[in-house]
């Protein structure tokens, strides 16, 4: 370890004890406040599992049915609790199975520490049984990773791992520990990491940039806020609300920012992006000052960059310097923690109303309601729509549930229509678009805040990518509510085939099993609904259940999600049909 880390003296433990590397791992996790880990055992990590057995009253281990499930569960746990999620796996295939979840956590800035076992260090590089270069493989998708070959490295490396995972822009860290390092005994003591000299987690706020931002915001006639997950990660929900209320600025969220502001707040104009709301997308290209808060101008948000908000001055509040001017050229960049920046900004902001400007959003909403929303949530046609199912979930949840979604049409519909009145309630795979995310993530979400209702809404395609995690639900008793919106299609791909590939439905139709029987096979209460008159009662029954519950809703096979910004089009050219 050549990296210079610093630790606070007062946090130093005075005593050292002679223990194995494996036991040290457990003590490190406990010292970091971890009480729950997700994982799957195997040869190279057995010494650590042996210690987990001894420490099971202090550190609970959830056995998922696949290592990918462990990472998504850790992600769901982290996103709901705000804590670092922990996943464990053995070497080789165990480790490679973590990669999808790690990549998902990296692109969605989720704090996660993954611990993998590795073959003994004398076997490294010999193509030993279950040897794989997981540090090499995970490098592009981790915030940091490291291989430990000596037990004495364990405390410092794990301390760094947690510090890096949770500080600044959070992300996943992978620690690979050779089997000999797990067995080896050493004098253990633990010091939390409080800084790394080559890593500036939180850039210092430049007051002059805050001043310039305030001037632009105060002078704006048509200001518009787009906030992202940075608001949630930075715990700046209250500051966001104060800013929009004081300055009278209409605001919209990226998909990952949803739930940071009450869905029904009068200045919440919905969601931006490919399947976002009509008003916020179109008016991005009419506002005069665009204020981006903790978001990264993803291509699914901006559409064609050459026609994105060209008329507007852009103010970007962001903790990651590499995001400034990465996709959209900013006029004022406020680097730093968004909560602190907004606190600095508030006293400089004039009260305002911008009523005529709000009207523009209301007008666009009326158009969208008439052309899209009405038919989605109050359909008159025979087949059930995904939108009406979400509408029933909203009614039953009273907007209080954590909603976990997978990837595809159901995800877009849910993120469009689900109502939230509490932050950290929208858990979805945004950047990576990982099918199979929702079921294990819902397990983690439920364990991250057991008092909250957790509803996983999943398509029939993604559900079958991690369906084995029903076993985890059964074994742990995690009371998650699972809604599968079944259209017997990979719906989003089918929609694109219909719109852009002349209806050539290549490999998108699914012949599905009896999902109710499968759930029942895992002893999970289950029901199927295919008629409108049965929907409300079924959703109510599911929500009232104290245990896990599976509800399959047979929805219209070939419905499309609108509005839609076709790839490469301008936000202004969003299609309503």
């Amino acid at each position: 370890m050549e990296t210079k880390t610093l630790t606070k003296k007062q946090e130093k433990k005075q005593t050292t004890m002679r223990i194995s590397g494996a036991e040290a791992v457990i003590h490190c996790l406990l010292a970091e406040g971890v009480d729950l880990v997700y994982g799957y055992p195997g040869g190279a990590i057995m010494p650590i599992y042996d210690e987990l057995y001894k420490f099971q009253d202090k550190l609970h281990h959830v056995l998922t049915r696949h290592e990918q499930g462990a990472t998504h569960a850790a992600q769901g746990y982290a996103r709901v609790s705000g804590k670092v999620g922990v996943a464990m796996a053995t070497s080789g295939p165990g480790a490679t199975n973590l990669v999808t979840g790690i990549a998902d956590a990296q692109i969605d800035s989720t704090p996660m520490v993954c611990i993998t076992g590795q073959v003994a260090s004398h076997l490294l590089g010999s193509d030993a049984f279950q040897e794989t270069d997981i540090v090499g493989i995970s490098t592009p998708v981790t915030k940091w990773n490291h291989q430990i070959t000596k037990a004495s490295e364990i405390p410092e490396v794990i301390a760094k791992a947690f510090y890096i995972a949770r500080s600044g822009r959070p992300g996943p860290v992978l620690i690979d520990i050779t089997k000999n390092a797990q067995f080896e005994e050493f004098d253990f003591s633990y010091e939390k990491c409080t800084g790394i000299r080559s890593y500036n987690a939180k850039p210092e706020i430049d007051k002059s940039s805050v001043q310039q931002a305030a001037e632009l915001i105060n002078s704006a006639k048509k200001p518009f806020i787009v906030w992202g997950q940075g608001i949630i990660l930075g715990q700046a929900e209250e500051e966001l609300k104060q800013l929009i209320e004081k300055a009278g600025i209409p605001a919209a969220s990226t998909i990952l920012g949803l739930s940071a502001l009450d869905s029904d707040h009068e200045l919440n104009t919905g969601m931006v992006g490919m399947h976002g709301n009509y008003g916020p997308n179109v008016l991005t290209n009419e506002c005069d000052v665009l204020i981006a808060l903790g978001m990264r101008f993803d291509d699914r948000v901006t559409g064609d960059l050459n026609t994105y908000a060209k008329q507007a001055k852009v103010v970007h509040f962001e903790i990651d310097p590499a995001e400034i001017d990465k996709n959209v050229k900013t006029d004022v960049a406020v680097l730093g923690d968004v909560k602190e920046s907004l606190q600095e900004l508030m006293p400089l902001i004039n009260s305002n109303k911008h009523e005529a400007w709000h009207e523009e959003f209301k007008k666009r909403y009326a158009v969208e309601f008439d052309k899209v929303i009405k038919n989605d949530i109050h359909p008159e046609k025979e087949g059930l729509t995904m939108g009406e199912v979400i509408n029933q979930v909203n009614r039953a949840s009273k907007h209080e549930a954590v909603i976990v979604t997978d990837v595809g049409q159901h995800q877009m519909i849910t993120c469009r229509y689900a109502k939230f009145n509490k932050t950290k309630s929208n858990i979805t795979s945004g950047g990576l678009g990982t099918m199979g995310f929702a079921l294990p993530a819902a397990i983690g979400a439920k364990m991250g805040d057991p008092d909250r209702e957790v509803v996983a809404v999943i398509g029939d395609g993604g559900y079958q990518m991690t369906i084995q995690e029903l076993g985890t639900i059964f074994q742990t008793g995690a009371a998650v509510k699972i809604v599968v919106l079944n259209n017997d299609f990979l719906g989003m791909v089918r929609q694109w085939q219909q719109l852009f590939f002349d209806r050539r439905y290549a490999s998108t139709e699914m012949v599905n099993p009896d999902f109710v029987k499968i759930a029942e096979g895992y002893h999970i209460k289950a029901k199927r609904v295919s008629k409108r008159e049965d929907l409300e009662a079924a959703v109510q029954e599911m929500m009232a259940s104290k245990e896990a519950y599976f509800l399959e809703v047979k929805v219209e096979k070939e419905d499309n999600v609108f509005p839609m910004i076709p790839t490469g089009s301008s936000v202004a050219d969003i299609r309503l049909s």
Partner: protein
Amino acid sequence: MEEKQSYTISIYSENNIGLLNRISGIFLKRHINIESLNVSGSEIENVSRFVIVVNTTESWARRVVGQIEKQIEVIKAYYHTDDETIFQETALFKIKSDLLFDQRQIQNIIKESHSEIVTVSRDFFVIAKTGRRPEIEALYDELRPYGIMQFTRSGRISVSKERMDISTMLKEFQLIN
């Protein structure tokens, strides 16, 4: 279209085993070919310095440097145009010893090119030439007709004309904590 030109990317980092992989991945992801790469110690103890030459646009150079700086073990990264740096490369030429005695012209070439003879043995001698790329290429072209047994050229090494306050940055960090 923004014009491509040669940029020298200088990185100060901790001396870490996996960092080269992490940094090269950043170029790979964006299909930016590394023209030359040199890793060495720096003016600060235990701090490594990468000098990487790429041919790209200014906006890509800026974004790549942003991504590099984001890596935990990178202390600071910069990008400079050729005008903003002092840079050199070194080349070694291995040539048959007979030629040194049989071909008088070779001695003149060595003299005029300001290269130096590193070693002479019974079978071969080695010439080292430090300078800019065109000077090395000119020497190569002159020696080639006589037969070059081996040729190799180092990556670019460079120092910037502007200050790079790495020591101050590191000191400040120690003081804060």
